[in-house]
């Protein structure tokens, strides 16, 4: 039994795949609660499917790109669970899972793009051929720089309708399609490492001054509990 989940968008999505089909799919209803919702959803999915933890044979996790905090919740959960259950853990680009659903549901007939919310007025973007094979990306970029009339899935079009006027479903990844992609070998497998695409927001300030003049700069040293 394959356990799949994704935390690269504000909602958590969890699914179980028995090798032939998806047997359960669950999703959180409140946004930005990855830490609270993921583990209970996994437990509920196993209950609903009538299986126990020892029945799990592999884990697939969305590795983004997406907001870092949620991404880490998913990946550390996958790695830890894989470690204690001694089963393999696969990473999948979350945009690929969206692309697979686009093609699987016939939402696009030709090439298309997937754009998701990268915050700070940017999007995570990748382009796909009609068979959901990734052509370019993922990258993080400003919508204006990649404005297109081509079909675009993901949350991008609803956030930036001027730049992505041709919206197609779905708006976010589903663990069911993620699981299907892995089970049916339709999707590239990655290491369960986050696709951050951005460096940490830390400015390596000026080199340490032996004795300082500016007292005020003391308060901006970034020391935290």
């Amino acid at each position, binding site marked *: 039994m394959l356990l799949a989940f994704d935390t690269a968008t504000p909602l958590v999505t969890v699914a179980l795949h028995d090798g032939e089909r998806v047997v359960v799919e669950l999703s959180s209803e409140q946004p930005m609660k990855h830490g609270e919702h993921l*583990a209970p959803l996994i437990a509920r999915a196993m209950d609903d499917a009538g299986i126990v933890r020892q029945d799990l044979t592999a884990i697939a996790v969305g590795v983004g790109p997406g907001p870092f905090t949620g991404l880490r919740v998913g*990946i550390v959960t996958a790695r830890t669970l894989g*470690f204690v259950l001694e089963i393999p853990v696969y990473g999948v680009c979350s945009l690929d899972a969206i692309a697979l659903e686009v093609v699987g549901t016939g939402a696009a007939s030709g090439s298309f793009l997937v754009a998701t919310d990268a915050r700070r007025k940017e999007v995570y973007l990748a382009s796909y051929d009609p068979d959901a094979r990734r052509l370019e990306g993922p990258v993080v970029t400003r919508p204006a720089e990649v404005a297109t009339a081509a079909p675009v899935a993901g949350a991008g079009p609803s956030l930036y309708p001027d730049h992505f006027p041709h919206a197609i479903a779905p708006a976010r990844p589903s663990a069911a399609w993620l699981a299907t992609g892995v089970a049916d070998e339709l999707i590239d497998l990655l290491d369960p490492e986050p696709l951050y695409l951005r460096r*940490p927001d830390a400015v390596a300030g000026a080199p*340490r001054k032996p*004795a300082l003049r500016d*007292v005020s700069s003391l308060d901006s040293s970034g020391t935290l509990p």
Partner: protein
Amino acid sequence: MTDEPLVLGIETSCDETGVGIVRGHTLLADTVASSVEEHARFGGVVPEVASRAHLEAMVPTIERAAETAGIALSDIDAVAVTSGPGLAGALLVGVASAKALALGLGKPIYGVNHLAAHVAVDQLEHGPLPEPCLAMLVSGGHSSLLEVTDVTVGVEPMGATIDDAAGEAFDKVARLLGLPFPGGPHIDRAARSGNSVAIDFPRGLTSRRDLERHRFDFSFSGLKTAVARWVETQQRDGITIDVADVAASFQEAVCDVLTRKAIDAATSRGIEDILIGGGVAANSRLRAMAEERAAARNIRVRVPRPGLCTDNGAMVAALGAELVARGRTPSLLDLPADSSQPITTVVA
């Protein structure tokens, strides 16, 4: 449930990824991976850098702890994890990993308060906690005086810093003096060859007026500014700064206020045992001064060894084991990470 439960504890509230394993009051493993090196060049902990490091270190640290303890994870009775207070993103990595462990092992999970864990860790060194006791927790993140009657139920805050934490003051003054981050050990070392009465630095919140409102509270921001001003003035006048004297005088001011208020707090409640925890508890002057002053009032002082004072997984496991032994109710799987979890909430 056994009174010697086997508990694994996870701590990720700041920059150390800690995993500890205890059986009752016996420490079996205390494995820590630190990202302090990565933060050193920033002069402080960068939350995103810490969170990324936790993710990478988490599973290898669990694995190493289990190896060191010589146990199979399936044998543990419960998982404990720091649910707060701390850096939100950092806490979340530990909490999510602990939930996955609990789920994968079919064991209960306890989301515990980081400060209560700093108190409970002393059991691994000195056995059952005296009840009640007065706990003084001093580190880069906290400076609190707590009355502890039962560490598994509730801890009553008596006082805390109103601005910087004690360890934060050490870091900032170290930086001012050109000493490396984290500042505590370097100030301690430099101070040994210095004169602690060379400069009369201010003792925050000790004036009669301040004591009315803040009898058991601390303030270190004025002290930090006073040190900066002093250094600045010396420099302007072209006088070479005696780092050892500044370090010793600063350290004396911090330790004076801490020990004075801790003893006052204990005495005010008729408590005869003081427990010191947190990274600053490793400071040699603080230990010496606390012991000397407490002895004069017939108060006993307990300080765990330095390795147990800093943030680690053993302290979380120690509190977890006590919770299991005393039959406390575990947390639920939807347990949140709470960056400002109040000290009165021992189990989230």
